């Protein structure tokens, strides 16, 4: 190939886009020598880096209903009847924070002149976000680095599972972290920085969601109730340490694992009440505006002592030790290289022409590099994703074979004009088969079949990159090579 031809080939926009993408990808992956051998910017999932995952299932249901009763009345009645926390999460949707079987619920509904329209196990998005926050708080407070929580929400908007992934933590450690509750305590300031114990978290009987206090004002707070004994202890301590007589100098402080999370004086109303009797129902105000609301949400979590608003069950869990993960990583690289060599040998046997085989194998390998770079932004590489990459290698080479054979039809190298027509036809076949792979993988990519999502996403991306970038580029590169 002379330099003139090389230039025109490089100037072809398809080839240019391909080269730019490839170079960008290599820069993104950025392989460089590090203390532990070659390091890259790739993100590895748990099965390659080592760590644990736990998937929890919410023991709760989101139910759509149609009622002839006033909605508020219905919700309150249902809550009493089921002895569960029932709240309205949409115009005709309630969340029941207790796992009541569908038939049982249908029965209760019909007794109340209400129709059960749909039943889904899980919680609403808001509750799921709360739970996520509680779990993250808990994990962070224990200093676990590199933990991720994912709420798994179905297409119907109901979240049934939450998945927690912790790098470098063994299974039993992970289960302890998730199951562990914080130690919550309310203390009262005596003099200066000194505080004295008032009550522990186990005296808190219930905690409400953050609310405006008074209603519709912009002041946020969390109401909570103490047990009768707790309320009496609270009163005694408040009197003993002077918080009732001089609230301003004797703040009440809430501590979680010895760390202060809230501190405020008694309100004058409450101070007055406490002089004569105990008051189990308390409100902790957190201030106005978005900040007040945010603080209220966090305080709610602390008051709940790290307990989740709904019960959870371990649906699944798993762990990979870092040693084994490292081995898997090595074998995956070897598998990839072997697959590529196998592909090379196979097409060398078919075409006997290094000028064709080399670009084919290189294009094939570069598809994988580009994919690795794209996935590094939003996917962790795990075993299933790598299987997907190798599958892409397989379909990719198939399509390059189709291209080459269409162009070399009847063994002759065609004139440029006919060449382009054939290339177009070949790309037609490729797009057709790519479309089927795309459709076949789409359900897996959209559904959340835990580990298989990465596989499907990689396959789909592989098809897209192949059809849009690398295969058209290959068509033009091979033209330049063949017409020499």
């Amino acid at each position, binding site marked *: 190939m002379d330099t003139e031809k090389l230039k025109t080939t490089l100037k072809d926009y398809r080839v240019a886009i391909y080269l730019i993408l490839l170079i960008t990808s290599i820069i993104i992956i950025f392989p460089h020598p590090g203390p532990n051998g070659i390091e890259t910017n790739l993100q590895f999932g748990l099965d390659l880096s080592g760590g644990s995952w736990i998937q929890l*299932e919410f023991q709760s249901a989101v139910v759509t209903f149609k009622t002839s009763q006033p909605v508020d009345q219905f919700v309150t009645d249902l809550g009493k009847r089921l002895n569960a926390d029932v709240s309205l999460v949409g115009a005709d949707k309630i969340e029941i924070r207790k796992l009541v079987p569908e038939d049982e619920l249908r029965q209760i509904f019909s007794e109340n002149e209400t129709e059960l329209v749909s039943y889904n196990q899980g919680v609403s998005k808001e509750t799921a976000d709360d739970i996520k926050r509680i779990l993250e708080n808990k994990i962070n407070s224990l200093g676990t680095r590199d933990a991720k929580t994912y709420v798994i929400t179905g297409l119907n908007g109901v979240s*049934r*599972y939450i998945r927690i992934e912790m790098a470098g933590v*063994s*299974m*039993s450690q992970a*289960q302890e972290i998730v199951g562990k509750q914080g130690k919550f305590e309310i203390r009262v300031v005596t003099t200066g920085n000194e505080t004295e114990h008032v009550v522990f978290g186990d005296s808190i009987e219930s905690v409400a969601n953050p609310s405006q206090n008074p209603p519709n004002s912009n002041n946020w707070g969390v109401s909570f109730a103490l047990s009768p004994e707790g309320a009496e202890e609270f009163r005694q301590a408040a009197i003993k340490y002077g918080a009732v007589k001089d609230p301003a100098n004797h703040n009440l402080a809430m501590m979680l694992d010895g760390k202060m999370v809230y501190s405020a004086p008694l309100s004058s109303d409450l101070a007055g009440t406490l002089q004569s009797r105990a008051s189990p129902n308390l409100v902790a105000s957190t201030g106005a505006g978005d900040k007040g609301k945010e603080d209220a949400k966090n305080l709610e979590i602390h008051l709940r002592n790290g307990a989740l608003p709904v019960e959870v069950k*371990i*649906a*699944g*869990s*798993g*762990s*990979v*030790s870092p*040693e*084994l993960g490292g*081995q*898997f990583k090595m*074998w*995956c690289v*070897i*598998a990839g290289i*072997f*697959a590529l060599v*196998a*592909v090379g*040998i*196979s*097409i060398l046997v078919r075409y006997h022409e290094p000028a064709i085989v080399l670009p084919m194998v290189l294009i094939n390998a570069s598809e994988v590099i580009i994919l690795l770079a794209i996935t590094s932004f939003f996917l962790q590489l795990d*075993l299933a994703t*790598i*299987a*997907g990459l*190798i599958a892409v*290698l*397989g379909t990719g*080479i*198939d399509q390059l*074979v*189709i291209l080459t*054979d269409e162009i070399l039809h009847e063994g002759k190298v065609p004139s440029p004009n006919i060449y382009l027509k*054939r290339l177009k036809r070949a790309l037609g076949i490729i797009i*057709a*088969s790519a*479309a*089927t*792979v795309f459709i*076949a*993988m*789409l*359900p*897996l990519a959209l*559904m959340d*079949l835990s*580990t*298989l999502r990465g*596989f*499907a996403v990689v*396959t789909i991306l592989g098809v897209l990159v192949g059809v849009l970038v690398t295969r058209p580029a290959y068509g033009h590169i091979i033209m330049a090579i063949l017409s020499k």
Partner: protein
Amino acid sequence: MIVLALSLVIVGMTFIHTGLPIKPGMEFTGGIGVTIVTQETPDQLKVTFADYPLVNIEEGINQGKYLKFDTMSDDKVLSLNKLIESKYNGAKIDQIGSSFGKTLQDQAAFALIISFIGMSIVVFLIFRTFVPSAAVVISAFADMTMSAAVMNLLGIQLSLGTTAALLMLIGYSVDSDILLTSRVLKRQGKFDEKVHGAFITGIIMTSTAFLAVFAMWVVSWIGGIEIIHVMSQVLLIGLIFDVMNTWLTNVGILKWYASKGKSKVSSTLRGGV
């Protein structure tokens, strides 16, 4: 045809037994899967895990062992975890509860059905003529049914990995069928010559893909990577059947179609270059 009928019988029987065309594995029924590297023999392992519901042990080449346990209580799971962590340096443990397994299984079955329907629609949109499109869909269906039958015979269970492999098989299978059908419908020339030309391309495609997957199969076996190993196993089985279904079943239908509706083909579809 006989193979397809036989496969349908096997798959049908499995379906009656389990409610699924392929026997569901641990991920779908619930249970625990453990990968460890140890010099202990399966018999020694059986002694080590005598207190736990060990179902079976598979061996890799490189001293890798893959153990499957039945479902057990949360406390038991925790103690099993601790035992494995303390005894073996380097383990992979996966535990799936039975209700979660059921959810996964339903979704996997749903994904397979939706994928297949989606693929069929795309194929019909591409060719816009009934018989050739149906031929592609039939041979993809035959591929999957036969692979499923062989999976049952070999005792390969339906898991997340094998579900993905079956879906991938839809893609691989349709690849060569689309090539064949496009060549036959959109090119001029004698039917047999066109088929022969497509066959040369198609067989190199399938054998190249076969070799790539084979490499993956061997390496994952040595490396003890169970999920990649079963996936490649299913793909290998499927690719072998694909050769048969594309070049016997699909060609057969196309040949019948070409001889029946010759005039219709040449008047509606222009030949290519």
